[in-house]
């Protein structure tokens, strides 16, 4: 795909717009791209990055990524009109059909778990669902897309150090604001997902997982996770091809 723009929108957080035919193949919010950060054999593997939003009219999509290590740092150095080796869209995204109009969807995102939730929020909003979003970040410098999510509904932001929004975790926000919901959608660090699972054991909805990947297409078995209610311990799901989005309580976090 061709880089249309690539800019830092928060501390170490980049938003990249890419153009290419594969945008037409996107079927659901929450799918991801598998990106080769360099044409050379170092770094060797592709990096999974969620699709944040897309525009089929002009074949563009947006990704948002944090410069974690070698691969994402190389990605941040790409300039307009550079080309990027992209495999995708991969995986199964969020299903929104399950959520009815007039129902309330609570969207909870943490850090770089936020991006895939953006197109989800828009899709739910368009469907007539009432969307409430809670976004958690480390600090004020890391906050991004707060206003964007407001396009879909009410937005709460929390930061761990309290430098923006309320101080604390996303779960604190939900408690303090007594947020109610029919469906719960989440993506973020595993401790956050676990806390949500504990607090709302009977929630309906889905969550998006991360795991280290090889192939990204289901062939190498690098990315498996256990399923819940599996006494034998032999059941599994592949995050890349069965996920990355799973119904709440389907897989072991």
């Amino acid at each position, binding site marked *: 795909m061709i880089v249309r723009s690539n800019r830092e929108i928060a501390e170490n957080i980049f938003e990249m717009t890419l153009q290419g035919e594969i945008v037409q193949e996107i079927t659901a919010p929450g799918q991801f791209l598998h990106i*080769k950060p360099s044409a050379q*054999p*170092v*770094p*060797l*593997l*592709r990096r999974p990055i969620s699709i944040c939003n897309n525009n089929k009219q002009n074949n563009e999509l947006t990704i948002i990524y944090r410069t974690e290590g070698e691969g994402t740092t190389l990605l941040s150095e790409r300039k307009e009109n550079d080309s990027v080796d992209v*495999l995708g869209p991969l995986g199964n995204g969020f299903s929104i059909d399950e959520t009815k109009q007039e129902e309330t969807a609570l969207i909870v995102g943490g850090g770089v778990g936020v991006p895939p939730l953006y197109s989800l929020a828009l899709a739910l909003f368009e469907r007539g669902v009432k969307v409430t979003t809670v976004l958690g970040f480390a600090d004020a410098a890391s906050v991004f897309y707060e206003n964007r999510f407001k396009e879909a509904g009410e937005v709460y932001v929390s930061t761990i150090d309290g430098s923006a929004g309320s101080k604390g975790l996303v779960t604190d926000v939900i408690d303090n604001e007594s947020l109610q919901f029919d469906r719960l959608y989440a993506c973020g660090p595993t401790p956050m997902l676990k806390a949500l699972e504990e607090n709302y054991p009977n929630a309906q909805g889905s969550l998006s997982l991360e*795991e*280290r*990947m*090889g*192939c*990204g*297409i*289901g*062939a*190498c*078995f*690098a*990315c*498996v*996770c*256990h399923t819940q209610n599996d006494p034998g*311990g*032999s059941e*599994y799901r592949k995050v890349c*091809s069965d996920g990355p989005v799973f119904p709440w309580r389907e897989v072991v976090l």
Partner: protein
Amino acid sequence: MTRLQTNLPGLTMKNPIMPASGCFGFGEEFANLYDLNQLGAIALKATTNHPRFGNETPRVAETPAGMLNAIGLQNPGLDKVISEKLSWLETYDTPLLANIAGTTMEDYEEVAADLSETNQVGALELNISCPNVKEGGIAFGTDPDLAAELTRRVKAVSTCPVYVKLSPNVTDITVLAQAVERAGADGLSMINTLSGMKIDIHSGKPLLANESGGLSGPAIKPIAIRMIHEVRKQTELPIIGMGGISTLNDIIEFIIAGADAVAVGTANFTNPFICPELIDELEDYAKAKGLENIQELRQKGVNSF
């Protein structure tokens, strides 16, 4: 179109290129991307007698020009491999090299007997070298006597040719090669992964849940080439060469070193279309050089053509 034709025991191949075991599953995912009939053969994921979940995650880690994996032989087990995977593969006419693994000799015998009985696999590939399974699987690949005995026993129960996949984690790989040749092996696959480790400096712990894993990718190519070159001097057995192949030149290097066919592993993750792309490139190359058969390159240089 016969320039690339490669006939090895049990494997009548349109070309000498196949995906390597464990890097291609049982082909289903790649069948969505291209026609598997283009491939010279398919090396299937290791099959064990019982289903295995494998190791906990993380199962892969990246290293300079390489990767570590510790999948732990996850597979659906012999019965399901036969009933689901092989039956699905029946629609393709590409020969299958069924990789088998186990923790006892009896495990191997059981899987070998049943798989060869299906008449659907062209040959078996004994994974005696997978460094990820702690139950002793590693010993088969490093002890020449055990390797020979295992080969003999598997040969005795198999109705198709048996390739032994050698481990590079040994002092002298020619000793292993000669041991399994004497025991009746029909061919060799080499090399499997090198045992390696990456430590997550933040947690202070090995990054892989299994602590160590198998190193594959371009980083190991010089070791694979050296070992194939050494073994080729000692035996005329067919060698399926692998270890870091990702370009046409890599394939030529392996053929010159002594490989009769090659397998592409890790590169399938970087570029899922790598196998058909390399097949096309090799065909074009053979045509441009006027080679009757690609094996003419063996032991010779490109400049001779």
